């Protein structure tokens, strides 16, 4: 086996990454921190706005009866003889699923389950709050006609139950399970079956609703939570790439961008001057202020690319193909409809 180690070492050592994008990474890290704070603020602001404009109540009566109308998906809580750490188990069609958490309080904490891989808790736990009451993650099994996608997450202490509404009309009721002093829920769906919503309840009633983004033939992504009474933001989708496949999905889940076949979602968007948002190995993309009509990307050799700033709902986005080599030293300039430059900056390395 030492040969394999040597061969792997040689092969992987030949992989030469580009220089470490330290400053761009720190910027992204600050955004993660700010997003955690903004989630709290956005929730509070949204409640105020909803109250001022008199949006009809979104609240539903607390009804937590177990569902019996769906035989395709079952979610069972652990029983007295269940293995330690089991959060839930059941069937998706004829396929059993289960989800457990192990070593919940240690750095080796991980989620795992029947026919699932592993999902480390490290960096995932401890971020729930009243404004973000369940921190959903997810993973899928690896085969079978009834392939399961299991959503799971830590639950805020004030939550007593959650109700999952699936697009086929089924409803699943979840009760948090305590493991090592932390509380978790888990449920499974068939891959490709959209989830309409997850509503969480405290002892005093409805606490929040999440309407996930269900990408076509993909897995649901939970990002934003709506407060009781908060109006659902309208849904928009549209292509925005200039020479590259890019599509934005704006709605109650926040903003999800699919660029170059890779998805990325965020619960809130920075109000942009002309905000860069991201880059991958071959694409740069971003949001733009309402006044921006187009951007030019100037490569280090002086050649330029033009990117249209395209509105998708209330937001504008842009994307252009730009290789990693071209990203180094590239700059963007934003222009309004009259051709006046309204902003500029460097392209952070993706």
């Amino acid at each position: 086996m030492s040969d394999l180690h040597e061969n792997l070492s040689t092969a992987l050592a030949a992989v030469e990454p580009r220089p470490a994008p330290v400053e761009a990474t720190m910027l992204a890290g600050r955004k993660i921190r700010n997003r955690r704070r903004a989630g709290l603020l956005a929730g509070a602001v949204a409640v105020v706005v909803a109250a001022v404009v008199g949006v009809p109540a979104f609240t539903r009566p607390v009804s937590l009866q177990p569902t019996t109308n769906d035989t395709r998906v079952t979610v069972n809580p652990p029983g007295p003889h269940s293995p330690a750490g089991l959060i839930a188990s059941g069937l998706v069609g004829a396929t059993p699923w289960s989800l457990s958490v192990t070593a919940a309080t240690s750095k080796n904490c991980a989620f795992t389950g029947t026919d699932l891989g592993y999902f480390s808790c490290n960096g995932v736990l401890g971020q729930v709050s009243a404004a973000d009451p369940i921190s959903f993650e997810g993973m899928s099994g690896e085969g079978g006609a009834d392939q399961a996608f299991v959503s799971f997450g830590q639950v805020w202490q004030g939550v007593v139950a959650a109700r999952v509404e699936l697009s086929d009309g089924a409803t699943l009721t979840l009760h948090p399970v305590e493991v090592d002093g932390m509380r978790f829920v888990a449920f499974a769906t068939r891959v490709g079956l959209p989830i309409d919503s997850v509503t969480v309840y405290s002892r005093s009633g409805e606490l929040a609703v999440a309407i996930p983004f269900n990408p076509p033939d993909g897995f649901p992504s939970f990002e934003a939570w709506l407060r009781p009474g908060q109006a659902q933001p309208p849904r928009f989708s549209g292509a925005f790439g200039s020479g590259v496949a890019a599509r934005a999905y704006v709605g109650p889940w926040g903003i999800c961008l699919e660029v170059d076949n890779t998805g990325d979602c965020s619960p809130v968007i920075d109000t942009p001057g002309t905000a860069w948002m991201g880059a991958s190995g071959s694409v740069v993309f971003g949001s733009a202020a309402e006044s921006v009509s187009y951007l030019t990307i100037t490569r280090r050799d002086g050649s330029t690319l033009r990117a249209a700033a395209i509105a998708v709902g209330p937001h504008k986005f842009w994307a252009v193909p730009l290789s990693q080599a071209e990203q180094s030293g590239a700059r963007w300039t934003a222009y309004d409809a009259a051709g006046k430059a309204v902003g500029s900056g460097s392209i952070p390395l993706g």
Partner: protein
Amino acid sequence: MSAESDEQFREFMRGRWPAMVRLAYGLTGDLGHAEDVAQAAFARAYASWARVARTGDPDAYVRRIVINENHSRFRRRRVTESLVDAVPEPAGQPTAGPADALGDNEALLKALRRLGPRQRAVIVLRFWVDMSEAETAAALNCSVGTVKSQASRALAALRGSAELMEGELQ
């Protein structure tokens, strides 16, 4: 965050960036995605840097997130991908430049990419990161027996790979 703390993170990231990208490359088989995964992992570490630095082992923290981020990317990328026995070449894999520079090493990396994600993870963690069977089992949250069986199947697949020269894995 203090300037001193920022500088500490910069030094850490510059030092560990190549290793984390290579780990992610071993797990994903795609350099562009590997860099994305590694950068996302470092960003998450920076977002909680005070806490991460206090652990005294930020390297282990970032490595763990690289594994998690790989799951996350895999999950999203599967919007447009489906698992098959013979994994196709990842989209966007360069056909010139870095891949060519790999030369004969590319054969091993190509064979690695043809493994399933769990088997690939076992091979990379066990035989490149040099984790013991027990450590690999802990990292993947499975039994030592599962590590052994996955490793055995993965090694058999690698040995049978058309890309690899006979005897390379003896």
